[in-house]
């Protein structure tokens, strides 16, 4: 009887111990979503240009600087504009402007470096992906004319003729032809080469749980009219133009957001500040768009991030 009881106790102990060893969380039962995935590719974080920046190694334009006037040089230019997207919002643009002055005549090359699109944090935020930003930087506009009222420059008026950029569409007359639409996409072009018609904007809205994409055609431009405050600073009024056409989106959660009209409001201003050699991060003798983006907080304030 005693022997039988001991055997039963031992068996119970061993069975219990065996059962216990088989319990608890189990990595084997936790299904792998991507069994072949390796270390994550950090470049996927670069999709949002707001988080990254590319400093180009482009040399300074090979312009003849003989008898160049005192206003000649590379300027960083910020446009502060106002728009209405149901409510009034601020949006800003950052340009690189190369000026060559001969008397009243200015040769001006304007390059769009970065756009801070109208956004309301936590409600609707639009950002320009890096691919689109590099596309915009690669489309500089160059004009030449008697844009300066006084050859002495300081105190002179500065009138820059309208300049225009179209992305996501190939138009015969960029300033007048209608942008392609979802229903009439014949002139739309996958210009950022990401497989989606038009160019891609990153969109985060309250109506979407995850970041989404908008596929658009954009026509943006500006007319500047100001004065030369001193040889390092130009200030004045800006008259921005922004046309957009939504060609598609990655998720129907953007349906409500895309139907909201964007209206450019008045009272928009620009400030241009001469760049110095200290901003030439890669020391190649040229201050490029990427370097202006780096310097923007110091030049124009906290809208562009913390000053470094």
């Amino acid at each position, binding site marked *: *009887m*005693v022997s039988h*009881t*001991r055997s039963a*106790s*031992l068996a*119970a*102990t061993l069975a*219990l*111990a065996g*059962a*216990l*060893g088989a*319990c*608890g*969380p*189990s*990595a*084997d*039962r*936790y*299904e*792998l*979503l*991507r*069994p*072949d*995935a*390796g*270390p*994550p*590719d*950090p470049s*996927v*974080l670069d999709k949002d240009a707001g988080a990254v920046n590319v400093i180009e190694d482009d040399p300074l334009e090979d312009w003849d600087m003989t008898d160049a006037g005192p206003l000649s040089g590379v300027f960083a230019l910020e446009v*502060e504009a106002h728009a209405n*997207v*149901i*409510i*009034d*919002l*601020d949006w*800003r643009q950052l340009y690189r402007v190369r000026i060559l002055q001969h008397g009243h005549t200015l040769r001006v090359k304007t390059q769009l470096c970065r756009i*801070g699109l*109208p*956004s*309301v*944090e*936590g*409600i*609707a935020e639009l950002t320009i992906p890096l691919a689109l930003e590099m596309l915009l930087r690669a489309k500089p506009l160059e004009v030449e004319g008697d844009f300066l009222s006084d050859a002495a420059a300081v105190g002179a008026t500065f009138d820059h003729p309208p300049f225009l950029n179209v992305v996501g569409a190939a138009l015969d007359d960029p300033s007048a032809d209608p942008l392609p639409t979802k229903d009439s996409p014949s002139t739309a072009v996958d210009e950022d080469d990401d497989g989606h018609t038009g160019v891609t904007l990153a969109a985060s*809205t*309250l*109506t979407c749980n995850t970041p989404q994409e908008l596929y658009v055609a954009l026509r943006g431009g500006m007319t500047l009219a100001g004065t030369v405050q001193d040889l390092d600073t130009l200030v004045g009024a800006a008259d921005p133009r922004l046309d957009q056409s939504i060609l598609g989106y990655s998720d129907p959660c953007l349906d*409500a*957001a895309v139907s*909201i009209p964007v209206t450019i409001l008045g009272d928009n201003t620009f400030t241009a500040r001469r760049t110095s050699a200290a901003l030439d991060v890669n020391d190649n003798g040229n201050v490029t768009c990427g370097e202006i983006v780096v310097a923007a907080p110091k030049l124009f*304030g*906290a*809208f562009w991030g913390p000053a470094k």
Partner: protein
Amino acid sequence: MKRSRAWSGALAAFAAAGTTAGASHAGTEDSYGLGPTDMALGGSVAARPGTAAATYWNPAGLSPGGETPPDPEGFGELSLAFVHAHPLVWASRADGSAVPLAVEPPDTRQVVLGSRFDLLGRWGVPGLHVGLVFEVPATDIFRWSIHPDEAVQWLFLSDRSQHVGIHVAAGYRIVPWLSLGLGLTTLFDVETNTTGTVTKVTSVVDPETGASSLDVQALLGEEVRVFGRFAPNAGVLVTPVEELRIGATYRARTYVDDWGSTRIQGAPVAGDLGYVHHYAHYFRPHELTLAVAARPHPSVWLSADVTYARWSEGLTTSHAALGPGRFGDTFSPAVGVSWRPAAALELMAGYEYAPSPFDNFGGPTNLLDASSHVASFGGRVDLPPAYDTRAWVGWAFRTTFYEARAEEKDPRRFASDLAVLTNPGYPGYRYGGAVPAASLEVGVQW
């Protein structure tokens, strides 16, 4: 012969408890006990009757057997206990920097009011005893902290650190060697429905950064309904000889179900907005405890418990079941010893090994938990009888020592590289720590 068989069973149970691993990690009852006695004994109390806490641990223990039942006929008992725990935990990156937590583990401060009494003894029906335990936070009545499961947070030290609970049970001594018990644990579900209409929206531009934000005014209405949620427990206590008690308890799965909806009309950009929420607070799985207590010496009791907890059905605070793998069933062994060096003094000590029921395994969740060793001790002093009453003071200290655990994110468990790189826990971290706790109780029996 009878004694030999009893000791063989007791030794087998002790051996099982010493050689196995498991976990019990439910609400504050499991973590800190319902008073100093169960805290001091490491939760090894399912075969140890005699306190109001038996209402939860084993309702059969409300009316223990034996040739000489310990409680007089017609007795009544009241106790008031205070439980305090203070987490001292850490989570750090490989470079030693602290991992920001979504919520810092708060202290637990619970007040536990206990009672047990002989229901019908005065009317000639002995052996039917009732237990009531009401536990309530000493500070906030309830405190919920809800974050996505991806946020780095302690699984059992944030949302579950304190709550309201009512435990009611009855134990009946059928024959001197057999007692049975049935009880109910009551928690409170909440339905919250919020409706609102946006009345005014003003855009505000930060003068320093230029960033836009919205100042939204809205009329809000809220409807809240509270429901009782009942979870049964049942127990059996066998007393084959005076020196041996064998107990078994089942506690049913329960949690606070918190659900509802929010609907806001006239929101800018989106028009009408709405969402449905569903949370689970204080989840406790089905639990089954087997226990044995033995008295090898007239002044010494030894006990061993092992608790099976069906954590594979576990829910996170976000009401997510997570699927197979991360939650797993556990067995948690506990042992306790008590010694009465004098008639009015009882000293107690206990140990519990609580394997973690959860592991992130490199996946998107960042819920921190680790297996733990729990050591405890305490005592109880019986005060001199007065006015036909017996009063006592009890105390206990207990510390949970978490084993340090490492978490390293595994890209194979994520839907995309972007999801890996933006996970709050990426690339990984280590964590651990301890949770010291104490309990003080006063009680009186008449």
